[in-house]
């Protein structure tokens, strides 16, 4: 098991390196001058030159690259070009919010999506099947920023149940925190419900038409047991796969959700960094994102072994 983990993490290294290089090059291909952003459009050319030297932008690109790689290897993501604060501490300050949001959305997705998918598959083209299709279609086709604004209009402006601006710090008041989390999590969870419902439904349809299910039914096994033990257990693998796979999609959509609901998180950080051409911050964030995805993939693979004893993680 330990060896398996170690090898997997080792395999992740080249992926991370490739992502790093790609990000480093990409952010610099786009025109734009961080010095101009920092100093404003009335700055003198000397002042701009001076600033570029101070933040190391005057060095040849390969020197910047080597310096950056060396830094990352030693676990330091450097400082933001614009604010000069350490990137890791900026990220650490908001990462809990993004994780809280994605995990909540994931939970909503599973709790809402799995039963809906199972119900839909039990009676194909029945009432529940139609509901499941409409819900998943809505979740898939509504961009997060549109559904977010609609939710705010309904639940924050009309009913005053939830605040428009999500509260960030301090985290001491759990009720206020939940109230702030509810709408964004539901907004993001809707997308997850959509994916999970779909994969559960199609998996269940397939499983329930298998020979062993027919045999079980013929033996007189109660319907509930047939569905959950003979059918559902076989759908767990695709469900876990889809959750792992779409975790990335979720993180992407969390950017939009965070902006609409004005929640602190990686989303606001990355948009701000893009607009200001904060090269180092962008690189740092990409490293973090890539790392999260790698970890999620690993966890997914490990989860296979848990839900299906036939999969061996050695």
């Amino acid at each position, binding site marked *: 098991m330990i060896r398996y983990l170690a090898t997997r993490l080792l395999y992740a290294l080249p992926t991370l390196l490739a992502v790093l290089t790609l990000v480093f090059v990409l952010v610099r291909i*786009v*025109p*734009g*001058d961080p010095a*101009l*952003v*920092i*100093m*404003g*459009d*009335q*700055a*003198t*050319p*000397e*002042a701009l030159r*001076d600033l570029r030297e101070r933040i190391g932008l005057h060095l040849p690109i390969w020197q910047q690259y080597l310096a950056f790689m060396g830094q990352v290897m030693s676990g330091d993501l450097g400082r933001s070009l*614009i*604010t*000069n*604060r350490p990137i890791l501490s*900026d990220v650490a*300050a*908001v990462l809990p919010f993004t994780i809280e949001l994605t995990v909540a959305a994931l939970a909503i997705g599973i709790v809402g999506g799995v039963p809906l998918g199972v119900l839909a598959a039990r009676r194909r083209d029945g009432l529940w099947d139609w509901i499941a299709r409409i819900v998943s279609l809505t979740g898939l086709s509504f961009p997060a*920023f549109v559904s977010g*604004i609609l939710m*705010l*209009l309904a639940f*924050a*402006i009309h009913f*005053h149940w939830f*605040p*428009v*601006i999500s509260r*960030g*710090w301090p985290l001491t008041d759990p009720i206020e925190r939940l109230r702030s989390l509810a709408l964004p999590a539901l907004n993001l969870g809707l997308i997850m419900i959509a994916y999970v419902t779909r994969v559960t439904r199609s998996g269940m349809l397939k499983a329930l038409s298998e020979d062993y299910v027919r045999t079980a039914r013929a033996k007189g096994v109660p319907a509930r047991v047939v569905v959950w033990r003979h059918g559902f257990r076989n759908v767990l693998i695709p469900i876990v796969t889809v959750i792992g796979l779409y975790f990335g999609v979720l993180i992407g959509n969390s950017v939009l959700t965070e*902006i*609409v*609901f*004005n929640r*602190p*998180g990686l989303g*606001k*950080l990355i*948009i*701000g960094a893009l*607009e*200001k*051409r904060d090269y180092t911050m962008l690189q740092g964030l990409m490293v973090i994102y890539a790392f999260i995805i790698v970890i999620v993939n690993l966890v997914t693979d490990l989860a296979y072994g848990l839900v299906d004893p036939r999969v061996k993680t050695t």
Partner: protein
Amino acid sequence: MRQFWTTTAVALAIALTTPAFAQKTITVGMSAPDIGQVDPHKATTTQDKPMTSWAFNGLVRFKPGSGDLGGLEPDLAEKWVKSPDGLVWTFTLRKGVKFHRGFGELTAEDVVFSLTRAGDPKSSSFSADYASFAKVEAVDPLTVRITLKAPVPSLLGLVANYHGGNIVSKKAVEQMGDDFKLKAIGTGPFMVDEYKPKESITFVANKDYFRGAPKIDKVVYRFIQADAARDLAFQSGEIDVMYGRQDQKWVERVKTMPNVIVDVIRPAELQLLHFNLTQKPLDDIKVRRAIATAIDRKQFTNFIGEVIAQPGRSVVPAGYLGFDDTTSVLGSGDSVKAKQMLAEAGYPNGVTIKMVQTSLPSMLAVAQVVQAQLKKAGVDVQLDVVDHQTFHANIRKDLSQMVYYSAARFPVADVFLSQFFHSRAIVGTPTATTNFSHCAVADAEIDAARIEQDGAKQKALWASAQKKIIENICAIPLHEQLLAWARKSSVDYGYKLESAMHLGPTINETTTMK
């Protein structure tokens, strides 16, 4: 069980009555993901500037709510005298002014330090403005003397509570180093309290403010970038004051909300369309004249809305010291005549113009109107739409034959003319700022006006510079765009808000909230 109900009732009663004793807090919603700094000598962006007016003072100040350079009044300085040649200025400071958080009393040393810092490109974004300062010295603890190398158009403007003129605490800058950026120490009515990255920055009342303690206890400056989210938060009552969209429909819609006041204010950003005089076919004045004729300036104010846009009347924004609108500007929108003029210039089949354009929605819409207007005259404008930072980079590399740029500057003609139309400022040169047109026809007048001591003669020189630039069609003014801020009617700034030099309302000791 009974105990449960009793405690609940007590808790509820406390919750319901607390607001009556609660601190008075004004929450301001700003369109930005975050702020850059509170340090006034580096605050160049729309989101950073408003805060500087809450926390800092200059030797003199713009009257709250006014952008009139002629109406400057004493701030940290009680009085001042200038030498007859305009080169030596002596300021007497107000006694007993205290810096925030125990950083001591204001002395001449702090003023010397601040103005020197403002002139240093390493510590200031506005160093160019102070290039003509020879020395700043403390004569005694309450007297400061500024000696100039050459006269400047408005010395008082340079020591006003704006940009580099804001006075910071010497001790605080030296002690805090990099931390000063977000914990800046000044003498203003409010002082920085707590900064939460990407979320908000809080200011608390400076009870020792020399004009008296503020009536508001706290100002929370919240960063809410998405327009829709800001509007919704305002509607639900979570913010009291908000940065508005520069859009008539927005103004009209928000005005209909109950108990809301929308302030449409100056300074206006003058929208200029610059023509690159070094590139074909725009190097030919006949072509420029044809294009300027095809532009229909009236359409821009109609399109954006008369509430928020006013006609551009010169190549300098209206109301600036030295503004002159006696030269008539082309832009009647006569496409038939324009077509004919193009044919006479040797382009019977029209011309193609490449234009780099930012994807910022408000600016892109204007460029598209330009495109549509010119199409009628046979001018094919090919828009290369890129994100805002790419736009800024590319127009500085001469990659755009026409540049649509929107700007507000210090309200004196010299600044606008020097940055946009003096040959020193031509993009791509070592001294470049923002002369996109390569215009060089008015260098002599701009330089002469800067050192002219006689006010009338100075104005005549600026007028002549504007005339030459307009007649040479280096650029054509489209319109002036005003700013919009909304507030709940319970918020009273304490003065009439007509202009905000800091791009947002000044919240000071006169501001109240019901």
